[in-house]
């Protein structure tokens, strides 16, 4: 067992990768699902073991193939990566029991095994990005996750899913290529690809005047921002979320953008460091401006959407704005807020998209007008939606409140009190778009599509309820997630100052 424990980092990548291969060979939908479920339930165990080890003994360095870093590829698990690993694997584990019926309902029989193959490949890529300590390796995993994501989106029922997948392919590839250009420039300057090594070689004194380093930072930031759908680079996201199969949307909304945010954190804090990114270059100002724009514009767009999936997609853009706002604040409380929101938003958005998936499973539509009175027919499903919605607003007692509290404290610490006001106003806009759906679902007579609906089977209901319960739990027991996020934030800001 102790021998195996040394290899935990690589298992995060190998297990889902082999699972994907087996899924492709099995070809039968239900068998493939069972395998994907098994893999998805093993992953969080490994991730939590890793987190435990990191909490106890500091960052873990794993030499791939026994080659010493910086020559070989190093897998490096520190507190931030362990935190994101837990987040991604838990979302995956929650979604898989839900997936069987939803996927069977939305995807043709012979394609179901491919769906699970792509899901596992996507999981491989996302976990690989998080676990690796090599800048070029991140690109490879980024493309593994991206390519499988394009396929997942294209599996949507509507022909517009193809269009959304194509658009995301173009934008995503541009983003990934920008990332490679940035890594290339960094390699030219430092001669290294290992993140720790690059950071050591980019000694602030020499780097401050180096134009290629600035260009690298610009390329990397823009490339990753395309992936995490930072406003105004978000155009691919609403279409992709709206037309992908329900399970894919729930999974991607909870994980893909979060992992991209993780890469941004790595770039700013672990590679370039606070001195270059915030003191020499105006990364903070740019991020703050764009984040506030995202919070406002995306939330307002969400108010005017009639497709509930699109409402949530636009709301995701706004919520990503809160996360990047935390990065832009660049102080410990602000960054804590950003990182804890990474976690909280993943929980609530996955729960919300799963509740929509359950509605699609029962009535086959997600247009706001068709949802009249659905709350009375599917009370538990819509209760999950309400809890998730309250968390989006940031009502005290839900996870969303914790993140916004830290963000507000971070803004106060900087003396930017108008920012606190803006956070409050955008939360009020969230009240409007969540309220619209809740009003239609609960306060109208059931009609048409909704009349015959009832709550979905337990296999779909339990995961949703668990996530909704977690949303409330992390809103009350603030120490559990926020304490780790705070340690992560202190490590990021203190480590390289």
């Amino acid at each position: 067992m102790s021998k195996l424990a040394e290899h935990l980092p690589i298992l995060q990548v190998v297990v889902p990768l082999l699972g994907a291969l087996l899924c492709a060979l099995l070809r039968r939908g239900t068998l493939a699902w069972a395998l994907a479920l098994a893999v998805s339930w093993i992953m969080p165990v490994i991730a939590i073991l890793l987190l435990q080890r990191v909490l106890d003994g500091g960052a873990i360095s794993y030499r791939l193939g026994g080659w010493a870093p910086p020559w070989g590829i190093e897998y490096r698990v520190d507190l931030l990566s362990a935190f994101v690993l837990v987040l991604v694997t838990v979302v995956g584990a929650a979604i898989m029991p839900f997936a069987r019926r939803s996927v069977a309902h939305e995807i043709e029989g012979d394609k179901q095994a491919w769906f699970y193959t792509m899901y596992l490949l996507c999981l491989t890529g996302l976990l690989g990005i998080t676990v690796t300590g090599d800048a070029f390796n991140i690109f490879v995993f980024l493309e593994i996750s991206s390519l499988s994501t394009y396929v997942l989106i294209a599996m949507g029922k509507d022909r517009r899913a193809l269009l959304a997948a194509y658009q995301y392919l173009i934008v995503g590839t541009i983003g990934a290529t920008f990332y490679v250009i940035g890594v290339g420039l960094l390699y030219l300057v430092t001669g290294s690809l290992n993140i720790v090594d690059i950071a050591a070689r980019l000694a602030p004194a020499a780097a401050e005047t180096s134009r290629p380093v600035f260009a690298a930072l610009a390329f990397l930031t823009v490339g990753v921002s395309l992936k995490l759908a930072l406003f105004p680079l978000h155009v691919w996201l609403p279409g992709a979320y709206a037309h992908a199969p329900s399970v894919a949307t729930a999974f991607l909304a909870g994980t893909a953008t979060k992992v991209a945010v993780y890469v941004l954190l790595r770039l700013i804090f672990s590679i370039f460091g606070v001195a270059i990114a915030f003191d020499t270059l105006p990364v903070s100002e740019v991020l703050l401006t764009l984040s506030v724009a995202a919070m406002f514009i995306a939330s307002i767009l969400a108010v005017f959407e009639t497709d509930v999936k699109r409402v949530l997609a636009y709301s995701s853009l706004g919520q990503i704005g809160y996360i990047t706002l935390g990065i832009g604040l660049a102080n410990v409380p602000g960054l804590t807020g950003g990182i804890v929101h990474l976690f909280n938003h993943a929980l609530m958005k996955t729960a919300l998209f799963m509740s929509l998936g359950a509605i699609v499973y029962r009535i086959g539509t997600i247009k706001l007008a068709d949802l009249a009175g659905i709350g009375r027919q599917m009370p538990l499903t819509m209760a999950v939606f309400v809890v998730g919605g309250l968390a989006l607003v940031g009502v005290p007692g839900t996870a969303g409140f914790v993140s916004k509290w830290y963000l507000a404290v971070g803004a106060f610490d900087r003396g930017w009190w108008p920012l606190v006001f803006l956070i409050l106003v955008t939360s009020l806009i969230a009240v409007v778009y969540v309220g619209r759906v809740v009003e239609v679902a609960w306060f109208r007579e059931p009609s048409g599509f909704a009349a015959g609906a009832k709550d979905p089977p337990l296999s779909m209901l339990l995961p949703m309820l668990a996530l909704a319960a977690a949303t409330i739990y992390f809103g009350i027991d603030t120490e559990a997630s926020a304490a780790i996020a705070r340690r992560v934030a202190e490590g990021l800001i203190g480590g390289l100052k």
Partner: protein
Amino acid sequence: MRYVNEFAQHYNYIVTIFLMVAGLYVVIARGNMIKKLIGLSIFQTSVYLLYIEPAKILGGTAPILDPAYKVYSNPLPHVLILTAIVVGVATLALGLALVVRIDEAYGTIEEDEIFEREGDA
């Protein structure tokens, strides 16, 4: 004379950046989905040059341990780009497959015509 020298010394980078910008321009300016993918491919390929050029040393050989050779090219960028080429091929293949499906579903691969039909998308 100075400028000619500068130009000659940076000629490979100028070509790389020209290809990069040209590819990106095609992706943005063209509405035909195949042409967009061609632009995307040119854009990706230009990055291969960005990596390979500095790695190649005039007269350098592959890094083989042999007393006859003293000058080696850096093998790492070549290996990295081999990976990037594979990624590029996979992306292009997937993109083309999607275009085939879009053509089957819509009967056209011109973006403006498709947007006209969908209204939003």
